[in-house]
């Protein structure tokens, strides 16, 4: 039965994607991209990927929509009406689609337990996690410990994107002459209206609490650093929309944001160097405690914290870079 739900969601996905390409008003396109991400998250859940669904919903449907809208506010919102249809591109695209569809006939069917992807390393992970690391969520175990190098590289990529956006757009008060106090005073934002203000001040503490819960619960259920960072950033973006850019930047100052961004990545690398100093290899958590299993759990906890800090700092800094520009 769930396969019918999966097919229904996938068809909706294709319709929304064609709608995004056809939409002339870019605001409509951005909203449809948010819907696309949410449908994708539902699809991931139908396919048993709970962690990935949570991340896609938090990052794709939440933060990405806000960032795209923030960027869209700085430029004209309509696409110029295209003069002619791009026949060559359409031909190339149709040909490639047919080739890919022809290639998929060789693939194993959905859910086939004999597919090659389920044979070599994955059963080893599923067997060895209760023995070596002893946490219930296998995805966090693989992310944090078995494939820890990939996660370190990915944190550095997020950090690089953050400093890239700061190089291009700049934050008032981070470096340079503009200070947050020079921005237009708040209260002309959503806080001007009573209902969003009341709701926002009611909900923001719970959103931040939920972000902390997701951060530290990542070992027992779906969760972890990436999702927690995105939810924390979303809570602070809500506050910034209600109270105004100036108040938000005076509460979490640009200096704090830069310390968060760099501090998380430093924490992650620092754990690696610490394990080398204690005698193991780089990112070998066995040496962090007397019992190797406890050492693994400590290691995963600390690096997830590092990931959460960096993702929060980067997403918030990028949002403020867009929102404070041109004021």
């Amino acid at each position, binding site marked *: 039965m769930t396969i019918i739900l999966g*097919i229904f969601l*996938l068809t909706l996905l*294709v319709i929304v994607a064609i709608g995004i390409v056809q939409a002339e008003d870019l605001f409509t396109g951005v909203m449809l991209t948010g819907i696309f991400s949410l449908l994708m998250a539902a699809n991931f859940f139908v396919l048993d*990927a709970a962690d990935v669904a949570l991340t896609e919903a938090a990052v794709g449907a939440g933060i990405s929509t806000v*960032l795209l809208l923030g*960027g869209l506010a700085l430029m004209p919102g309509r696409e110029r009406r295209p003069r002619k249809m791009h026949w060559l591109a359409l031909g190339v695209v149709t040909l490639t689609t047919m080739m890919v569809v022809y290639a998929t006939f060789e693939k194993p069917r959905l859910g086939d337990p004999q597919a090659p992807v*389920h044979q070599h390393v994955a059963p080893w992970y599923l067997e060895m996690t209760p023995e070596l690391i002893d946490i219930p969520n296998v995805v966090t175990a693989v992310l944090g410990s078995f494939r820890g190098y990939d996660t370190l590289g990915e944190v550095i990529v997020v950090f690089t994107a953050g400093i890239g956006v700061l190089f*291009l757009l700049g934050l008032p008060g981070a470096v340079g002459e503009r200070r947050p106090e020079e921005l237009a005073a708040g209260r002309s934002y959503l806080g001007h209206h009573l209902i969003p203000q009341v709701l926002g001040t009611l909900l923001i503490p719970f959103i931040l609490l939920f972000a902390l819960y997701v951060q530290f619960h990542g070992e027992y259920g779906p969760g972890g650093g990436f999702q927690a960072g995105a939810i924390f950033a979303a809570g602070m973006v809500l506050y910034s929309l209600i109270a105004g850019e100036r108040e938000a930047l005076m509460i979490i100052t640009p200096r704090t944001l830069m310390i968060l961004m760099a501090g998380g990545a430093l924490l992650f690398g620092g754990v690696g160097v610490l394990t080398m100093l204690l005698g193991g290899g780089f990112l070998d958590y066995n040496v962090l405690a007397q019992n190797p299993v406890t050492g693994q759990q400590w290691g995963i906890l600390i690096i997830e914290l590092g990931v959460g800090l960096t993702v929060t700092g980067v997403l918030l800094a990028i949002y403020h870079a867009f929102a404070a520009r041109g004021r």
Partner: protein
Amino acid sequence: MEILGLFNYWVFAVLLMVGFYAVIAKPNMIKKLLGLSIFQGAVFLLYITMDKVEGGTAPIIQSGVTDAIYSNPLPQVLILTAIVVGISTTALGLALVVRIYEAYGTVEEDETQRLDLEE
């Protein structure tokens, strides 16, 4: 019944090409960015489709249940990092588009090329 088993892959092919068409055929730069994010979404769909095992559940080991079937955790780990990298790329691309708009006054690709040639 074969269609149902392969439907995910066909949707992947269609989404891939819809996103790719937006990148190569639309001159507006924000439309290209949106097409790129559709393209990335299609690739995520391919990987997560490969991880499902029939009759399995999410790979969270319940203590005390010894013979449950779990879906494959490995593609999920790869896609988890890929999603966050995707949004970082989109944000950086958007910052570049904002600066291009401030420098040229337009975000249509052919107009920026024309303005470049005129200088």
